[in-house]
């Protein structure tokens, strides 16, 4: 798929750091990846996937980049390839992980560090509103 020309609507989001906006183009790009994740809602499919990740993935029409990201559990890579966090949640749930586990990985923190940050009030807006923020 070719990279879409950014509309004024999408351009506004480009300035926000560290954030993937699941727009209609990413939805199109991520369709096979997200449908694969959705299939893991069924116990039989989870068992088949766990038995052989690569063989199970072969049936879903993922791009090479999507497949490699899934096999490596590269969550940021899956987001970049059109994954949506609510669909990816089926995959990390199958692996026995929580939202917080995956969020911590995506931020580069340990889960303990991330959990402490949340207990301390979460990630403050100062410094992460804009890519032009001087503190970044």
């Amino acid at each position, binding site marked *: 798929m070719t990279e879409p020309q950014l509309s004024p609507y999408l351009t506004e*989001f480009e300035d926000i750091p560290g954030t993937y906006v699941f*727009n209609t183009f990413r939805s199109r790009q*991520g369709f096979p990846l997200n449908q694969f994740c959705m299939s893991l809602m069924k116990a039989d499919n989870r068992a088949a996937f766990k038995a052989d990740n690569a063989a199970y993935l072969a049936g879903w029409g993922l791009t090479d980049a999507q497949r490699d990201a899934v096999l490596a559990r590269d969550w940021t890579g899956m987001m970049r390839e059109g994954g*949506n966090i609510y669909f990816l949640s089926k995959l990390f749930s199958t692996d026995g992980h929580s*939202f917080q586990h995956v*969020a911590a990985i995506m*931020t580069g923190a340990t889960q303990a560090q991330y959990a402490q940050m949340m207990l301390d009030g979460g*990630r403050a807006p100062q410094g992460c509103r804009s890519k032009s923020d001087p503190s970044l």
Partner: protein
Amino acid sequence: MARIVAGVTTSHVPAIGAMIDQGRQQEPYWAPIFGGFEFSKRWMADLKPDVAIVIYNDHASAFDASIFPTFALGCADRYLPADEGWGRRPVPTVMGHADLACHIAQHMILDEFDLTVVNRMDVDHGLTVPLNLLFGDLKADQAWPCQVIPLPINVIQYPPPTGKRCYAMGQALRRAVESWPGNERVVVFGTGGMSHQLQGTRAGFINTPWDTRFLDNLTRDPLALTRITHAEYVREAGSEGIELVMWLAMRGALDERVREVYRFYHVPCSNTALGHIILEND
């Protein structure tokens, strides 16, 4: 005519449902969160609504990546709790009010608000967690105390509807309810929010001052809230904070002047700033 008697908003964090299902409400992390809804449960028990219209979003449960309906309305007799990967939540089956829902769908579409009609779907934590928080920890063999009409809005694929459009939808919903000849007393739920972000290096984002202004303006100046752009939601409330447009759908179904009956705000609830407010027409 049927009447809308009150509006409720609340976050719908899935971990809340998991804690209820595992009986862990009294753990130190969770006790203050559940405690924040004690007044609300008493208030709801006194209100005794006949119907709850629950505005929420599906989280890749009923709808897969094939379809992202912008506004949908459940017109079924009943809805099972969705299997979100760990089996269905052990909460009561959600009983619909199909006749009223079919009337609302017809009225709103002829009123130029083009809903998608859903005759079968499961409902996920986005709907069942708010029911628990307001009606209590009911088990699968019990019954919710009122009928429920689910109204899912897409907020996971951008663009979701604008806040202004959601507010207008609430107004159209009210007209539809008030044109129904029955005497049902209806409470409207707007769910999701408040500031949170589940993905990217900015995950864990929380903005309490912004959330507080949003809570204040829900009573004082909701039209100001309808002018918040999607980019501002993402920048100031995080990529999943966009769920707050569903609060504006609830707000549109009430009078211009409302009274804030109760407010609760707590950080953190899992990855989220939990917000909850009860509004009555003034």
